[in-house]
């Protein structure tokens, strides 16, 4: 089973002793089966809060406004038990650090059997057979023997492959990969990117890739959401974002990536200024204090959603269609 995912006007704030932190504000996200969605932004942009909200794993001090619907069902209205069933069955998460994702004192095989606990129709032997097949699919040679390994006996790249296999075992409709290659070396990163791209040919659910690395997003995604300080500032097809970015923040972020320049630069481009304090988010455009194109309304009026094409939207006063 796989269905579409939609977040409408989603806001998340954390209640802390120092006041509310408005970590996510008025975010609209849409994803359809078979799509790979990229969420890109720097630290503090709210990308982790967003995916944690989608996976329904926010901490107790988080308050959610707006709606998240998956396959037509509003996730917020489900009771805890139904939410849990959905997480195990439909939503899977591949986390950044493959070492901490596993229990160090159980073998890989035992843990992957446990991950299938909701499959009451399968016996242990059948579950192990599924694991072996899945490990083979993610490129682990000698899967039967690897199942008896403990997590520390595998290299970082191998562990990330096992984490992807674990996520796919539940046959999820929504696979969230949070910084899937950040902890890996570049040659291993290339292999995991290749693996994810291969897998999507046979997998027809939604994949959400969260990364701060523009290269990873460009390699993997169909559509991209660019986030800054808790808001989506621009979204569109991957080609439009990388070749026709219109929001000043997207343009600045792309310009900062040293991987875009083949010739040596004497000064690397930067974005001057710092993130706004999210306990008191600015009333106008959130990027205005750092924007070189800011003018009168940016400081006080929330920027409009400017539709640049059927799928390309920028939230900025200075952008015209």
């Amino acid at each position, binding site marked *: 089973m796989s269905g579409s995912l939609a977040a409408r006007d989603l806001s998340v704030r954390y209640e802390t002793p120092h006041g509310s932190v408005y970590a996510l504000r008025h975010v609209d996200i849409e994803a359809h089966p078979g799509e790979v969605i990229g969420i890109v932004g720097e630290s503090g942009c709210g990308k982790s809060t967003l995916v944690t909200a989608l996976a329904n794993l926010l901490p107790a001090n988080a308050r959610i406004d707006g709606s998240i619907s998956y396959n037509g069902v509003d996730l917020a209205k489900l009771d805890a038990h139904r939410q849990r069933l959905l997480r195990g069955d439909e939503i899977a998460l591949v986390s950044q650090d493959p070492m901490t994702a596993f229990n160090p004192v159980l073998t890989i095989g035992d843990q992957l059997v446990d991950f299938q606990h909701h499959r009451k129709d399968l016996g242990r032997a059948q579950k192990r057979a599924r694991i072996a097949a899945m490990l083979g699919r993610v490129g682990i040679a000698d899967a039967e023997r690897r199942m008896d390994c403990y997590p520390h006996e595998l290299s970082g790249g191998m562990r990330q492959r096992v984490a992807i296999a674990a996520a796919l075992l539940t046959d999820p409709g929504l696979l969230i990969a949070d910084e899937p290659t950040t902890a890996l*070396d570049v*040659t291993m990163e290339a292999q995991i990117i290749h693996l994810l791209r291969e897998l999507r040919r046979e997998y027809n659910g939604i994949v959400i890739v969260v990364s701060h690395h523009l*290269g990873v997003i460009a390699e993997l995604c169909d559509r991209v959401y660019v986030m800054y300080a808790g808001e989506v500032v621009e979204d569109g097809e991957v080609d439009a974002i990388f070749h026709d970015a219109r929001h000043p923040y997207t343009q600045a*972020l792309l310009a*900062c990536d040293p991987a*875009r320049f083949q010739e*040596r630069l004497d000064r690397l481009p*930067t974005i001057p200024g710092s993130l706004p304090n999210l306990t008191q988010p600015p009333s106008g455009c959130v990027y205005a204090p750092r924007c070189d194109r800011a003018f009168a309304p940016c400081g006080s009026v929330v920027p409009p959603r400017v539709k640049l094409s059927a799928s390309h939207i920028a939230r900025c006063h200075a952008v015209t269609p």
Partner: protein
Amino acid sequence: MSPLLAIDDLSVTFARSGLLSRLINPFPLPSFNVIDGVTLSLMPGETLGLVGESGSGKTTLARTILGLVRAAAGRIVFEGRDVQTTADFRAMRRRSAMMFQDPVASLSPRLRIGTLLTEPQVIQGLPMPDRRAAAKALLALVGLPASFVDRFPHELSGGQARRVGVARALAMKPHLLLADEPTAGLDVSVQGDVLNLIGELKRELGFAAMIVTHNLAMIRHVSDRLAIMYLGRLVETGPTQDVFSEPMHPYTATLIQSEPIPDPRRRSQNPAVTGEIPSVFRRPSGCEFHTRCPIARDRCKTEAPTYRPMGADRMVRCHFPLVTGGQEREAFSRASANQKGKLT
């Protein structure tokens, strides 16, 4: 001009010699060369990028240069003088500085920034009439407000902590700065800030720098020369531009190809290499890269290549270097079938 720092045939050995392992296994195991025969030099004012993946020994090499790890063999010559004894290293550390990888962890959480910045002078026993003023001058040097002297490390952002790290490293006016992953964990918009700062101060103060990193996209813009490490050995050195435009060692070419390009129109087709980095505990025979090299031949499996000069200021450790127009380069492009258009 004589080099500021010359390393000759340096090796570092980590022995597996814990009490427990000796009890379990009475036969002593062979020790492992974590750094093996590294020869490298750094000219005054030069920036060298030391590049490698995790486990390649790049951090160990930087630590060995400053005497934080003991070398098993080889020579280190700093400013024309042999560095061997603890006293030699102590004297050398007065004119060199290290920026450690984790900027917040390398600042003691209970000391204020002002104290942390002036610690090097205190440790080296240098006279300092006004400690506060000295700290403020250092903060000004790296573009931080003077009010930071009273802050604690946890009150700083990642980029600010990095700046404090730069200020502290430069407190002794070193001739050599060793920076271990100076941009790890920083956002792209901030990483340029730190690198620009190091570049500016380098021009102003004239120190030489060795930047240890795995980030090729970044090092391309800040280094004059590159040294590529694999399993504790240098596989290639040369001027940065030349290494990027014409990588001669298949490993270097692989690293450059593996870097994802932020352009959806130039997606990679196939990973250039497969497999994992072998462990130094089980160093492959012959050329250590042969297990993953797309153009390895029989000779590579048995005979270790020598580290030999290839053209002006280039050194390569490979039997079949990828020379432009040569058949090895063609074979490499074919084998990796990578259509990024980076290697032509």
